[in-house]
């Protein structure tokens, strides 16, 4: 006796996600509630007793966050897996489902952020800006229609692909292979997050020491200025950003601080840094 989700239920899952992936955002749980809302119709249809419903709902309580649009794939996969679990595949337990969720969210966050807001949107906006040069509303309308149209199609498409994959995954990605696959995906994710950190964080110091002058080999008087940022780059490029990330990671992981606390600490760091001249964005209107 095999249970098959109705199209309607799958659509509900998709649209709850589409509309609510970030609406209840906190830095503590990010997209966890959004994800749960998407799974609720599925869980309600698949299981009739509360014990199973509770077990399955709780499966989705761990932290979740990714680029939400490309991330609809993960929702699709989870729906597929949940369906397979309801059909008696006992290998599919919480650990496996969350392993896959956790394994995918890193890479998809990196790839999604760089491809959607990082690449696709700038292209569309360039075109749209061209259409609006003289104050014409055309560009704005063009952007809204094209972006929402293509993105909705894309999200639905990979949601469906994910659903199929999730279902099939049962036959393939089980046991040790699933572990190996998941761990390796996490590895890609970690590498991508590393690159993300180096590309998108640009902490730098404005500190410089004016050390008078000295005479070089040609006997010329040369200004002797030590820019701390140059020195740090010599040790490793973008070192301060690396250290800042490690610092936040350390506070959250080892000191068990919440993201909010860490942010408050950074507020203090920023203020003190500015006061002592360590930080100076050097901007002007």
């Amino acid at each position, binding site marked *: 006796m095999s249970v098959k989700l109705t199209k309607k239920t799958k659509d509900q899952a998709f649209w709850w996600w589409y509309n609510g992936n970030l609406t209840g955002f906190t830095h503590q749980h990010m997209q966890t509630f959004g994800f749960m809302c998407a799974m609720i119709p599925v869980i309600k249809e698949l299981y009739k007793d509360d014990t199973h419903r509770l077990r399955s709902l709780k499966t989705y309580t761990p932290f979740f966050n990714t680029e939400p649009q490309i991330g609809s794939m993960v929702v699709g996969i989870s729906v597929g897996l949940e369906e397979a679990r309801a059909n008696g595949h006992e290998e599919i337990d919480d650990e496996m489902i969350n392993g896959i969720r956790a394994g995918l969210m890193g890479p998809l966050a990196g790839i999604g952020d760089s491809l959607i807001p990082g690449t696709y949107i700038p292209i569309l906006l360039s075109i749209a800006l061209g259409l609006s040069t003289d104050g014409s509303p055309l560009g704005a309308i063009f952007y809204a229609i094209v972006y929402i149209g293509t993105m909705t199609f894309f999200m639905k498409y990979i949601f469906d692909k994910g659903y199929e994959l999730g279902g099939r995954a049962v036959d393939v990605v089980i046991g040790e292979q699933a572990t190996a696959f998941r761990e390796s995906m996490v*590895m890609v994710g970690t590498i991508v997050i590393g690159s993300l950190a180096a590309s998108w964080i640009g902490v730098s110091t404005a500190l410089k020491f004016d050390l008078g002058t000295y005479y070089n080999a040609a006997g010329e008087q040369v200004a002797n200025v030590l820019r701390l940022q140059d020195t740090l780059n010599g040790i490793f490029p973008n070192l301060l950003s690396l250290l800042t990330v490690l610092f936040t990671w350390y506070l959250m992981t080892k000191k068990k601080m919440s*993201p909010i606390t860490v942010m408050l600490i950074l507020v203090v760091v920023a203020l003190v840094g500015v006061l002592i001249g360590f930080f*100076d964005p050097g901007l002007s209107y």
Partner: protein
Amino acid sequence: MEINIFQALLLAVMASLTSVIGALGTTYSWYTLSRPLVASLVVGLILGDVKTSIMVGAAIQVVYIALVTPGGTVSADLRAVSYIGIPLAVAAVKGAGLNPASAQGAGLAVSIGALVGTVGTVMFYSTATMNLIWQQIGWKAIDKLNYRIIYLTNFIFPLISHFVIAFLPTFFITYYGTDIVANLKEWLPMDGIPMKTMFTLGSLLPAVGIGILLKQVVQNPVDLIIFFFGFTLAAALKINLVGAAFVGAMIAFLNYKIIMVGAGKKSASHEEDL
């Protein structure tokens, strides 16, 4: 130019709905309605001057054309840029009798945008923090299988946060702000402590987002090696994210083989099922 009470109300509604965590959802609100170019059409309709508004919006849009918010870190929440910044800029530009497409016009617009962008950042983090209250409620509902509360937690309760943190300030700022805006640059100069700190903070905060992502994948300090490797790819080798993913896939491929060998299987088998 004045912004009347009704107009200010509409602007405040828009500011509540948009943002990266806005009530209308990521695709509609953040990636569409809060883009300055799109917003400028809405603002133009509200203020009754579409042409000027779009010219101002376009100038501001250029600055934020590739805004990315990794791991919930927002260097400029566009809801403020778009629904406070654009109206005020339109008012300021028209008030000063400037051509919005001229150097001074565009420059003024962009300055106002930058200024309220930092205000938006504060709004974003405050909203996300206030949402913690609702999640307390939602969290308890899970054990009781109270689906309704879960949906309310994710969709409805956060409206309260938006009301307090986005609606009210937007209303007041746009309603009373037109006079103030002219002197803002003097009150909050870019080389003053407050603005310096805000922008410094803007460069530090993404680290928290990355830190949160990192926390998920690195439990064991030894795994930081993998993170360092990825950092090196981009920092020292200037590889972009797609390239990093390719290199990462190569490494992960070896890792996969190692684990499979450890599990006593020849990695060759099944491989093609991936």
